[in-house]
């Protein structure tokens, strides 16, 4: 009989090893799934993990990895701060939309200006929109003790309706022949977030994501606030003795994650997406939760996890194209990644013992 025995502290070795193990296990289980669908599993795995990086058209897909990973990393960094302190912001998707709306509305209000101040103003408003949306669950939690999990999640659906109303109403393109959707920022140079160096995929959103990684790393390892966040999550009682204010910490964590999600939305709507539409949100806010955990809530881990997630999206598309894999199989493949990560987490927190021997 096998028995799980809780480790006094999580094993450092296993904590680092589980993401790698999870990826390997996903490749094996995914390979079996693809084989069951009648596809060559080795070919499929190679198409998903290898071709986007080193395949025939890698010069296009490598920059696309950055484009796709940028918002995921930016949002996940913000979420990880809260998650570490046991503050659960599940509504990053809503904050992402509100950031995009605030920023885009600011830009469109001044159409067709060519002021260099416009884009910075939009960035500030984008962050503010996300911040504002995240402060609703924070204030409700502090005043009335509501669950930030439920409130932040429900606000995603509210944001979705505002997004829809905006693309049919106040932000609708006056030259769009009555069709929904805002003006396209590609044709509005002062507000457009294009590639900084052509062909690299690097736009301001990617820069912000890398900046957030560095800032979070410094914050968590060097700054007193980072210490408070860690202590509050690991030992709430000790945190109180150390003088941590739970109210302040909740506000900071939710506010920061909201602002970063809002920034991600702003950079996305002014760059790759180009316009406000009813379908603007495509799940980045939810996928970022997976990225945060896949990256072990560690800034560098999140950077790698975001790139890995982007790889499965782009490789998954390639696999659909070249091997005719159904999109549901690719989604199942991505789901497996989180499943195996959580499953292997057991090894970090528990030791496996033979029950008989332990008794003797």
């Amino acid at each position: 009989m096998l028995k799980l025995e809780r480790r006094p502290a999580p094993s450092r070795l296993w904590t680092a090893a589980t993401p790698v193990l999870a990826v390997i296990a996903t490749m094996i289980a995914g390979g079996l799934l693809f084989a069951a669908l009648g596809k060559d599993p080795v070919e499929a795995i190679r198409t998903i993990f290898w071709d986007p990086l080193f395949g025939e058209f890698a010069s296009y897909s490598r920059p696309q990895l950055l484009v796709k990973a940028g918002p995921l990393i930016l949002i996940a960094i913000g979420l990880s701060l809260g998650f570490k302190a046991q503050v659960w912001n599940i509504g990053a998707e809503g904050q992402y939309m509100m950031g995009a709306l605030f920023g885009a509305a600011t830009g469109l209000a001044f159409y067709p200006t060519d002021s260099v101040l416009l884009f910075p103003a939009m960035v500030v408003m984008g962050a503010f929109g996300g911040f504002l949306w995240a402060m609703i669950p924070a204030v409700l939690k502090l005043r009335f003790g509501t669950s930030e999990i439920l409130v932040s999640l429900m606000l995603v659906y509210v944001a979705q309706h505002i997004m829809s109303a905006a693309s049919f109403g106040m932000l609708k393109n006056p030259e769009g022949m009555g069709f929904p959707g805002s003006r396209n920022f590609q044709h509005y140079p002062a507000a457009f977030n294009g590639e900084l160096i052509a062909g690299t995929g690097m736009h301001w959103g990617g820069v912000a994501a890398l900046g957030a990684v560095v800032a979070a790393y410094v914050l968590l390892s060097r700054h007193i606030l980072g210490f408070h966040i860690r202590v509050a999550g690991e030992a709430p009682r000790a945190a109180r003795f150390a003088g941590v204010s739970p109210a302040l910490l909740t506000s900071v964590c939710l506010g920061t994650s909201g602002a970063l999600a809002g920034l991600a939305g702003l950079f996305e709507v002014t760059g790759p997406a180009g316009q406000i539409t009813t379908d603007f949100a495509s799940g980045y806010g939810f996928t970022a939760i997976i990225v945060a955990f896949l990256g072990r809530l560690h800034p560098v881990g999140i950077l790698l996890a975001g790139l890995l997630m982007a790889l499965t999206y782009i490789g998954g598309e390639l696999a659909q194209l070249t091997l005719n894999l159904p999109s549901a199989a690719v989604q199942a493949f991505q789901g497996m990644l989180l499943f195996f990560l959580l499953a292997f987490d057991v090894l970090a927190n528990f030791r496996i013992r033979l029950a008989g021997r332990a008794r003797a």
Partner: protein
Amino acid sequence: MQRRTLLKSSAAALVAVSLAGPALAQDPLKVGFIYVGPIGDLGWSYQHDQGRLAIEEEFGDKIETVYLESVPEGADAERALTQMAMQGADLIFTTSFGYMDPTINVAAKFPDVKFEHATGYKRADNVATYNARFYEGRAVMGTIAGHMTKSNKIGYIGSFPIPEVIQGINATFIHAQKVNPDVEISVVWAYTWFDPAKEADAAKALIEQGVDVILAHTDSTAPLAEAAKTEGVIGFGQASDMLDFAPSPRVSSIIDDWSPYYIKRVQEALDGTWTSTDTWGGIGEGEVVIGEITDAVPAEVKAEAEALAAAIGDKSYHPFTGPLNKQDGSAWLAEGEVADDGTLAGMNFYVEGIKGDIPQ
């Protein structure tokens, strides 16, 4: 796959280049499709995929098809389209309105690839557009609805207040009123193309207002399922035939059949006669098909509806023929005047007699 491996060795690539002229003629034409939903949605994307299967059957090994399903509109669409073009697609159908800007952008980068965008209004030398005159089918449904309603109230579940949907509402009302001057129409906006729960709620609300004929511009079977619960309420299949609900409440249907158009365009691409066009086919072109009218409809009504469909099909009658006034009473079409396509494509007003406002 084999072709790609072959191309990887540079020697073989040289041979391939030198043989490119004659080799191209042998190569099958690669036709790509991008769908907004899963191909199993039994509505919009399903009907487009039926078109893909139809060209496979028609052209056999002269062509090869690839598709990507559930592609979000926006940034992801642009990447998916680029990947498809890089993988060697020669002709790409982008089957949702939200793919308009991405299609134009990618087409600019691949001047040798032909693109076809459904339901949009932006064209280029290598971007054609196509849509179906769904309002022709609505005219036939409106005639049946006007005869069949006992409460003189018909209900219409609108998806989004865009010209295509408003054309449908107007065409329905004009033809219902022609055979029943007392008829009224109530419109409920669902703000979705596919959401069975919302569509069922909308149908329920209409039935509670005394409506006994329901038309839907949304794609699920939920409105029919809701109609089936109340005695004497009828409805129509939308996008697909929805025969499961025949003979009642489904008394007829509007079927989107993209096969004739896809076959024609692929043939032109094979022949080298493909040019960028704006096609708007209807009953006459076989793109809009009236599903079988069941025995729940009296024989003389059935005959009248079929005669109307035939007249629209052979172009002897246009569903928007004057005299017609706009909702506010101002004149739109004089006696015998026919609406031009430009007005229809941007239609943002109700005709006289419809109560309520179009949400802005």
